């Protein structure tokens, strides 16, 4: 059952990302992206990362994608279809490079037996004890508390930077 679900989600994700790359209209691309993100959230659930799945839907598919959409609307880009795709030698070369990359990554990741510790048991035990949120909150606020705080500063800087960049310069 879980395997079947996984393959369904995987197929949808791949289809969605092909759509992202291939759609002519930016709005269509964006909607395909939302589909891909949602199905990835499903894969996250199957991998027992419930909290991340929720964040994926809320933050990524919700907030960030809406941000993109607003920008597309703002710039009125829906009709600008010309000369978007690069054809000819460039795309062929790109295809070759990307194909090789895919081959390398897949053979490496799929073809070898992955060793490792008992991460799954530990995570499952933590989820049983502390709940899905608690399991990730525990390391986040202990081991990774300093990076976490720095992330806050990063976001603040990003906000200020975005404001400065996007502001209309009054001269």
């Amino acid at each position: 059952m879980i395997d079947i679900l996984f393959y369904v989600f995987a197929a949808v994700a791949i289809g969605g990302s092909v759509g992202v790359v291939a759609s002519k209209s930016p709005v269509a691309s964006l909607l395909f992206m939302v589909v891909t993100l949602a199905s990835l959230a499903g894969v996250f659930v199957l991998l027992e990362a419930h909290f991340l799945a929720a964040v994926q839907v809320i933050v990524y598919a919700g907030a960030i994608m809406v941000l993109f959409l607003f920008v597309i609307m703002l710039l009125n880009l829906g009709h600008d279809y010309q000369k978007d795709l690069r054809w000819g030698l460039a795309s062929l070369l790109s295809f070759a490079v990307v194909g090789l990359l895919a081959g390398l990554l897949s053979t490496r990741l799929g073809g070898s037996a992955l060793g490792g510790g008992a991460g799954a048991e530990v995570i499952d035990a933590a989820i049983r004890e502390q709940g899905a949120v608690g399991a990730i909150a525990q390391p986040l606020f202990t081991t990774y508390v300093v990076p976490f705080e720095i992330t806050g500063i990063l976001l603040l800087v990003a906000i200020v930077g975005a404001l400065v960049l996007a502001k209309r310069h009054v001269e």
Partner: protein
Amino acid sequence: MITESLVLSALLFVLGTFGVLIRRNAIIMFLCIELQLNAVNLSFVALSRLWGIDGQVFVFFVMTVAAAEAAVGLAIIISIFRHYETVNVNNFNLLKW
């Protein structure tokens, strides 16, 4: 399922790369970069099944950075658009001397 997830992540990553390479619309290139980030996130989550919860914490950080990047990147695109009236990167060829 871990192995399958990793293969899926690889496929999504190269699709994103391909998009970055062949599209000229800055917004779509940007979306493809998000796709690559998500592919990496997927492999983090998958590998956290092997090596513990830290992988998921990293995904959390990646998402935050992605949000910041989206905000700044889109702001840049907006200001470029104001200047050139287009988001086609073929028109932005000042990155040379």
